[in-house]
């Protein structure tokens, strides 16, 4: 045996035919290719930054952003820092995402159930809805709603409904809860959550008693009564201690010569169009998920519960839907993710969400750093949705036997 053969042979197999060695070679080769590419890109970026003296690093975050942000839910001023502006923009995205997911899920479930109705008109209408809204780009739909709002009459000739709801081409201004002291609100909210939990506990206890004794004890009504009563009690308690109600209503008022509005809450044209568009678009996808989920439950389940005397609605509520949830939840989570990511189209219709603000920021701050930051923000949002979805999935799974 020559030396070369001895080196390149393992247990009598030449290395180039040895599976283990080939696997290692493939991994090392792919790692080398990717690492080389990444290093090359990175070196080029670093070179370009140095050659063209492009600003870099994260020191810009402390600087004042000095650019207005259209609609914002956190208090914001142009003198605030880049970092805070990013927080404000992320909040804008998160609020649209959460509100959008809540509304889209409700609408989607209604349309998905309607799709399976044995009423021909209802199921055809929902089919038309799904096929249309799913197949048209979200951007076109957003522009459609946006220009509808823009075509409303200007602010001085706008519609006023009931003296408090102002509808005009700037958006909708409506009464909104306002807090005088933050502590009272937080305290009341905490107590209100406690009341909800207490109501749920009462409901569960009464359901158990109903099952064990067979006597009706009105669990739903009692639960709601306990919740509302607890909330009202907390409201009165805090009101007596603080001397005023924890939340008051802020009504919109006209001021100045041009019929401008202050107080209340104004949903700008961009926010309205974005929310309507996202909800209508995503609901079409959710409806298909819900339909597939309900259809995945065996027909025997439906027939058995009907044979036991449950009404169609009770069958859906207590038998079919809980089982369908297990199929529905995973794709539903990915729709939540999609909605969150799609909210980045809000920039096209003038809503200051994360991507839009980041895009403006790149004019005065290093793009590489901003890109890394907003990527981290979006990944964090995606992970949060996955977490919520997985927790709920686990909760639903207990139903399984």
């Amino acid at each position, binding site marked *: 045996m020559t030396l070369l053969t001895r080196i390149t042979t393992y247990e009598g197999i030449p290395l180039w035919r040895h599976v283990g060695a080939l696997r290692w070679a493939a991994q090392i080769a792919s790692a080398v290719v990717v690492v080389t590419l990444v290093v090359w890109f990175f070196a080029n*970026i670093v070179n370009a930054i140095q050659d063209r003296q492009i600003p870099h690093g994260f020191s810009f975050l402390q600087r004042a952003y000095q650019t207005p942000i259209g609609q914002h839910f956190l208090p914001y001023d142009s003198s605030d820092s880049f970092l805070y502006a990013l927080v404000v923009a992320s909040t804008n995205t998160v609020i649209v995402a959460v509100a959008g997911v809540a509304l889209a899920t409700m609408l989607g479930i209604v349309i998905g159930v309607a799709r399976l109705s044995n009423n021909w008109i209802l199921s055809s209408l929902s089919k038309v809805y799904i096929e249309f809204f799913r197949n048209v780009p979200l951007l076109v739909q957003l522009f459609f709603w946006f220009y509808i709002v*823009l075509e409303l009459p200007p602010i001085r000739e706008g519609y006023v409904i009931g003296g408090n709801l102002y509808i005009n081409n700037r958006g909708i201004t409506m009464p909104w809860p306002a807090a005088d002291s933050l502590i009272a609100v937080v305290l009341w909210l905490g107590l209100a959550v406690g009341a909800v939990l207490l109501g749920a506990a009462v409901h569960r206890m009464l359901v158990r008693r109903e099952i064990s004794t067979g006597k009706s004890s009105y669990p739903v009504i009692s639960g709601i009564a306990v919740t509302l009563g607890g909330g009202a009690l907390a409201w009165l308690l805090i009101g007596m201690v603080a001397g005023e109600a924890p939340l008051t209503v802020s009504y919109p008022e006209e001021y100045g010569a041009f019929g401008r509005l202050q107080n209340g809450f104004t949903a700008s044209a961009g926010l309205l169009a974005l929310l309507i568009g996202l909800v209508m678009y995503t609901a079409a996808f959710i409806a298909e998920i819900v339909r597939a989920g309900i259809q995945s439950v065996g027909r025997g389940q439906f027939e058995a519960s009907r044979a036991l005397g449950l009404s169609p609605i009770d069958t859906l509520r207590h038998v079919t839907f809980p089982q369908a949830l297990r199929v529905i939840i995973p794709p539903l989570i990915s729709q939540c993710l999609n909605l969150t990511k799609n909210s980045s189209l809000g920039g096209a219709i003038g809503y200051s969400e994360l991507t839009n603000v980041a895009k403006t920021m790149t004019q005065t701050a290093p793009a590489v750093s901003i890109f890394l930051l907003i990527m981290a923000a979006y990944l964090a949002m995606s992970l949060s949705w996955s977490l919520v979805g997985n927790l709920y999935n686990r909760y639903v799974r207990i139903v399984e036997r």
Partner: protein
Amino acid sequence: MATRDVPAKTAEVPPPMMTVGVMGWARENLFSAWYNGALTIVLGVVTLLALWFGFAWIFGPADWEVIAKIGGRFVIGQYNTEAACIGQDCFWRPLAGLMLVTMLLGMAWGVAGGGFTKRVAITVTAVAALAAFIPYSFDVMGLDVRLLLLANIPALFVGLALARYTRLGTMKWIAIMSVGVFLLTLLLLRGLPWVPGLQPVSVIYWGGLMLNLLLAVAGIALSLPIGIALALGRRSRLPVVKMLCVVFIEVFRGVPLITLLFMSQVLVPLAFPENFPQNSLFRAAIIITLFSSAYMAENIRGGLQALHPGQEEAARSLGLSGWQTTAFISLPQAVRNVIPAIVGQFIALFKDTSLVYIIGMLDIVEMGRAFIQGNPQYLDNAQELFIFLALVFWVFTYGMSYVSSKIEGNLGVGSR
């Protein structure tokens, strides 16, 4: 002896009138219970009112002039403007590309020998040819344009003849020629500096539906193979390969496409040496393709996971190698089982091509929006514009899902 009672022949009684025919159908589907009857009446009235007012609006106050004003710019954007094509007429280049496509469709018809391929080919050609009769004045839409549009009919039959009477009439040749036609169209549109009459046109002027279709075709053709590679990589037993694929897929799925597109315009130029040849269209195409491949990979991984492990074991025990098992046993079944998801991703990709507005390219949507922004007298007609755009996209996406359901039928999904 008792005789058996022979029952007298009874007259055939027709089924109750309320269970068959129109009445039976209506009873079962519209009035099966009192609440269904109420729902039917309410929804019926609402639907009729909506249709009535909808049609009244379409043929009444709606002003469709904005569509006519934009006209050809919906299709090719600013491609044929004076700035894009200095001193020349460039309208014939996209039209020539269209003729190549109809020729390919004719070949596909010849190979498939009819069925839905024939229907698709004839529909596309008919739409192109009918476009020649749009009632514009000849100043706006010249005779040359109209003749080139009509030339799609002979192009279709040239393709059909090529498939029937030459050796090009196989699937393999159609696949090769599709790639060739795509590259040739790109070359035609881009132009060559040393060929007279083929003056280079910068990609920043490419626009309209042409841009959407180019991006979608490139993305669809490339995202499937890349997605398959990524899906296989993610299921690989090699930890390094698996990790790389997981990172790629999760990063591209975690960030909005619009963010990636925008950042590609800012960052990618820095990531290459300064004299490296690149342009915005190319970058957008690559980002859209990679983004779509990440989703495609997850769809295909789903298909691979749903496959019974017995398939792979049987293939291995028959003596197929690992690669052969993947290529001939696992992948074909996995891909076939997730055709709806794959086509769904293709449709999503086509819709996503409208996002290139973020990098300043005038696709069909942005072309329309830029027009009404530049001509405020049409601001009140934005609804007409966006309804038209929605219909254009709807026709394409619905066509894609129609073709997908036909392909599924031909492959026998769900019937074996």
